[in-house]
């Protein structure tokens, strides 16, 4: 496969979105590190152990484009936010009993060194497959932020563009480190449509000038349907090679947007696994979803992936779900070619 060309030649490539389950050992280690009860070297050894386990698993199931599992990231926004001058506050709710720590921005955004590049280089060294690097985008960092700074509270554009400018530096460092596939995660892109135009500008700035240097993916998920209907044409105008969307959670009802607006000849990250349920999808269900997508995409344009990160599932369930994805992809290669 030639990554620098538009798209891939492998039909029905498989990948994951970014996160894998973080078990109690990892969470305890992080908490102990925070309390000063564990040194950094020991903490990183625990992270490396889990990363290696998942990299080996992804090789075993022959995933086309592996991901690191994001084990250094307690939360996708907190990881970047705390490296950009924000501070972590106490928990707030997400859904059911899930919670996360928001980042409070009380001062100007700061960026002194690459955030995710060392981790990327380490994980890439564990595989010959092209690793997908993942970054939380400016729209999501802004939307999930708690703002105390008067400057940012009063001017949402400045906040987003300041985030975008530093994230662009991070993208450049990843590219310089050999990153060939970079995903910008924007689950919050359509959350508040009054910010959408600002968000689009910020996302564009994040990868400005780099479009020809790597394969860029935009990940969006769990949008309000009305908001997504309004946003979709503008999302398609962004210079990404692939848009990834959570299809399984919606029983592929998101395909209606593709029917209505097309997809600007981009590749699709087809979420075929519901990451918020332990119910095991069948290969037939996945193949049925792919068959639907085949009305609009060539085989090499359809990436089979989970809907979103697999962090919320147990290790066992996550592995089994991912295995089913790769097995279904293999069947699709026999069936649809």
């Amino acid at each position, binding site marked *: 496969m030639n990554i620098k060309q538009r798209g891939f030649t492998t039909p029905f490539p498989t990948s994951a979105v970014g996160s894998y389950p973080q078990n109690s050992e990892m969470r305890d280690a992080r908490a102990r590190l925070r309390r000063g009860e564990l040194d950094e070297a020991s903490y990183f050894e625990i992270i490396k152990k889990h990363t290696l386990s998942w990299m080996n698993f992804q090789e075993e199931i022959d995933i086309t484009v592996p991901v690191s599992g994001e084990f250094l990231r307690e939360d996708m926004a907190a990881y970047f936010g705390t490296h950009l001058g924000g501070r972590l506050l106490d928990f707030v*709710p*997400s859904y059911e009993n899930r919670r996360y720590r928001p980042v409070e921005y009380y001062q100007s955004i700061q960026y002194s060194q690459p955030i995710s590049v060392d981790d990327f280089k380490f994980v890439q060294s564990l595989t010959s497959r092209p690793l997908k690097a993942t970054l939380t985008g400016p729209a999501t960092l802004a939307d999930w932020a*708690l703002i105390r700074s008067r400057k940012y509270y009063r001017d949402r554009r400045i906040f987003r563009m300041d985030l975008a400018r530093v994230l662009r530096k991070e993208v450049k460092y990843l590219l310089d480190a050999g990153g060939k596939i970079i995903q910008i995660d924007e689950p919050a892109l359509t959350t508040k449509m009054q910010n959408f135009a600002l968000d689009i500008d910020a996302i564009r700035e994040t990868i400005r000038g780099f479009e020809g240097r790597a394969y860029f993916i935009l990940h969006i998920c769990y*949008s309000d349907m*009305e908001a997504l209907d309004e946003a979709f044409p503008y999302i398609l105008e962004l210079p990404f090679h692939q848009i990834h969307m959570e299809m399984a959670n919606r029983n592929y009802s998101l395909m209606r947007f593709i029917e209505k607006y097309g997809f600007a000849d981009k590749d699709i990250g087809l979420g075929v696994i519901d990451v918020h349920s332990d119910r095991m999808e069948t290969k037939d269900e996945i193949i049925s979803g792919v068959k639907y997508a085949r009305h609009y995409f060539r085989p090499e344009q359809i990436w089979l992936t989970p809907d979103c990160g697999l962090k919320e599932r147990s290790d066992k369930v996550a592995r089994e779900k991912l295995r089913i994805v790769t097995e279904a992809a293999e069947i699709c290669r026999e069936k649809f070619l």
Partner: protein
Amino acid sequence: MEVIVCGRWNRHCSSREETRKLHLVRNRYDSDKASLKELMSSQDEVTALLVRELEGAGVNMLGDGMIRWDSIFDIAHAIDGCCEFDQLTRIPKTNHFHRQPVAKLPLLRKKSILKQDLAFVSELTEKPVVMCLPGPYGLSLQTRNMPEIGLEKLAYAYAEVLNQEIRDLLANGAMLVRVEEPHILDHVQDFGLFKDTSARLLDGVDTLRVALATWFGDTNTIPGYFDLPFGTFFVDFIGEGKSVEALRNFPCDKQLVAGIVDARHTYRESFRQLRDLASCILQHVSSEQLLISTQTDLHFLPWEEAILKVKRLVRFAHEY
């Protein structure tokens, strides 16, 4: 000027023993390792803690924080005819999600939904209690098969059920029942239906004790909004800044709960900013009509920051 704090409160707090325990008990309950009794007991402890802190902060009217409920839309679990609750969906304009009900008509109220919660919080406080419900319109929009059933049919069905719940809550001591309908601010085209279902929702009810709440939008976009048959309106004056204009024709026999403090950020409005906003509002409503609150519920903020916001609001109310 009186302060109301009601609706959802963030139960995830690492600095309070009761909330740490609840998180663990809930995890165990979800894994079938704790009983419902244990869970409810832990929820009661957090509710009691919250009430103590809100009273200590000096609020005049309060709610129970809806500690038992992951989402206000989860009251659909108590409605006969609502089922499945599989698909996770976003609550608009938030980073919160809930599992959507699928509705199979007819909808029936199996039993009282919040009466037990009301009874519990009423035992904890002498202060007037505000209980909160989702409105039929928003609940319909958040129901997975609304397009198949039809918005009008479904909204009326929910309105029937919620009408019974409102009657029950008022009869059992709630000073106020707040019905939240933020969706309507982005769906002005449905206002005709909204008026009709509101009438059904409030049929036979003491409307002086029922409030309509919206946020994250501008009530100025809906002519006649304040003519709806609710006795009190919770209005968000943060962000868009245009809602004050809508108060031009605010009825003199209704109450306004003005959301003048940002509930989504830790930004601290100065007292001067609060005073300026309150003064604008008081050009349209009398001081007897006005109560103050945060723009929406405080569950977006960590517990400590939320309590600070409440204390600040109370201090402002005393000093203004």
